[in-house]
């Protein structure tokens, strides 16, 4: 049966290897959606109506697609944070904290100082990326010097960042008279809105360009090759004279830059708030969502763009699902977790096949 499939693929000139990741991701997404439907049935909701509104809300019209892309923008970047760590053999889940710092950096520059329009946005973006990278460095150093596992250290830095940024927002950067948010970004620091009434701004081009840049870096440069070598085979990398400590530090810094940019995209690249809420409400959980997005995108920066659009669609469509089918939109995040679990279990497909005797 397998040879039959291979020959079919040869006849149709479909290269088999590059296709597998898509099939695996697709099956994992299906499993996630099916289990999500099961969770709806258990609590007495109708999954068919819910999914109808979920997908109609996310991809059903031009304006909805624009919103979906707006949701996808930060996710493709936090996905890069996880993906580049993963390529270097790390499990960097620090995007969550780094995005807080990035958002604060963008809000501070965009609201507190005055610069010519355009340049202002660029400086705010750069400062956000800088802070994101700064926040990523300690975990990298702890890993390099003391061998502290990055899962523990990055989570701790996430929580510290959460309290630190809330504190700084309330005490130093709050809008006078409105302690719940920072001073809104000045018009010159904002990315132009692409369509009247939509929340998609030009920041998405920066995000996509960043992802493509990472792709070129990973597969087109010597440093990128070294990074992938360390991830794929640390011993071989060591033997080849690659400085794995430098690689670890670099992958954390690039991840921090990506997360910082994601933070900026939520402040100076997304109406109507144009500022950071003291509850961190407009950036919270984007870092964790990025893990799932990265895994659905097979830890590939370009794959991450498509996965982010898919998951951004779920986030946006979730609102419609909640309004029209009564299913709380947070279920979408649970589905993301289920997809991650399905992706972590590659042998699930052969097991199902064996059981069903396909």
């Amino acid at each position, binding site marked *: 049966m397998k040879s039959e499939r291979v020959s079919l693929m040869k006849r149709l000139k479909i290269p088999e290897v590059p296709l597998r990741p898509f099939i695996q991701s697709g099956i994992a997404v299906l499993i996630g959606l099916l289990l999500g439907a099961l*969770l709806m049935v258990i*609590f007495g909701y109708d999954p068919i109506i819910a999914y109808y509104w979920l997908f109609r809300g996310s991809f059903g019209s031009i304006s909805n697609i624009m919103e979906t892309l707006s949701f996808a923008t930060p996710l493709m970047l936090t996905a890069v944070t996880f993906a580049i760590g993963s390529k270097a053999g790390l*499990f960097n*889940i620090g995007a969550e904290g780094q995005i807080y710092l990035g958002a604060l950096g963008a809000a501070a520059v965009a609201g507190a100082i005055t610069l010519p329009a355009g340049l202002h946005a660029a400086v705010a973006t750069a400062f956000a990326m800088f802070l994101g990278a700064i926040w990523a460095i300690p975990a990298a150093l*702890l890993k390099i010097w*003391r*061998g*502290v*596992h990055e*899962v*523990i*250290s990055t*989570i*701790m*830095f*996430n*929580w*510290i960042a959460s*309290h*630190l940024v*809330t*504190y700084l927002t309330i*005490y130093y950067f709050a809008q006078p008279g409105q302690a719940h948010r920072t001073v809104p970004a000045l018009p010159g620091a904002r990315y132009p809105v692409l369509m009247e009434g939509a929340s998609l701004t030009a920041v998405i081009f920066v995000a996509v360009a960043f992802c493509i840049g990472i792709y070129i870096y990973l597969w087109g440069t010597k440093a990128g090759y070294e990074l992938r070598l360390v991830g794929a085979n640390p011993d071989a990398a060591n033997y080849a004279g690659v400085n794995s400590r430098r690689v670890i530090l670099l992958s954390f810094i690039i991840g921090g830059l990506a997360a910082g940019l994601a933070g900026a995209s939520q402040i100076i690249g997304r109406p109507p708030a144009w500022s950071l809420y003291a509850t961190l409400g407009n950036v919270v*959980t984007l870092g*964790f*969502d990025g*893990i*799932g997005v990265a*895994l659905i995108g097979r830890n590939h920066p370009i794959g991450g763009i498509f996965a982010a659009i898919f998951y951004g669609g779920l986030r946006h469509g979730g609102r419609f699902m909640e309004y029209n089918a009564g*299913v*709380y939109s*947070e*279920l*979408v*995040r*649970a*589905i*993301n*977790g*289920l*997809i*991650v*679990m*399905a*992706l*972590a*279990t*590659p*042998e*699930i497909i052969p*097991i199902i096949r064996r059981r069903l005797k396909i």
Partner: protein
Amino acid sequence: MKTLSSLKGKRALWLLAVVVIIAIVIYIIEEFGLNAVSLLESGLLSMTPLALVAVGECINEKSGVVNIGLEGMLLISSVTGVYGAELFENGFIGLLIGALTGAFIGFLFGIISVYGGADQVVAGTGINIFALGFIQYLLMAIWGFPGIHILERRLKVRPIYTPIGQLSIVTIFAIIAAGLAHIFLYKTVFGFRIRAAGENPEAVDVAGIRVDRVRIFASTLGGALCGLGGAFMSVAWFGAVVKEISAGKGFIALACVVFAGLEPLLALAAAFIFGFTEGFAFSVAVTPGVKEIIPFYFINMIPYITTLIIVTIAIGKRRFPKASGVPYRRE
């Protein structure tokens, strides 16, 4: 045998150091005019979920199953614990339901890591992400109110009075559980099998013992302890469940496990250090004279900073089972 005795010596030294530090801290507390008994009480409260989770994780990591989905399991079982307490009108049944929830998730995790050949770190992260969304969905689906649910007061599991202050039964259970886990792992045949499954699964298989069943059992047991910790937080400690109830405790417990090098008794000691630091920090924070100077947000960071410091100091000397996190396949 030499290594074993030196290990025991080290362990005794660690415990002695902990006792000395606590004595010094208590002395300082008395000097500051804080109440040592209430400090110990709050420290033990903070310790309890960490200890339960860490001891559970020691057991399943010994068998070769590394579960980093502890944070998510704490979240889910804290909700099901409250739900169980309200459904059966009894807080203790709530705790039991929480433990069963944890056991169920641990069982599923065991299945996918043993038979599914799962990347356990990714799968554990999946549990964490799932839980973030799922508990909010659950809170809405069950009680129709987003983000928080407060347990009826009468259903809360009350602490009991002891010579060293008010203690929760679960706290006492956690301390006993650490001791039992130690005896179970080192003095019983089944405990030996669990350790062997983590060190050398081929040998266990050759001896005619099912590696898959040993690992799934250990994962289920670890999950049950974790679930009890989650239900303890909502049913016996806070008396409510909020969407951030675990606040990184799953990962702090993971740090305890790393610090303890998978020894349940050391994990208990680590959990006590973390719990006590947290209790100490909050007590100092509300002391008049201090609370005006140090913002509350910085006090909130203390558990995480402590974790980073302790992990940074302790790491590098511990030995972990050889087959930890590696799926076992028969050839």
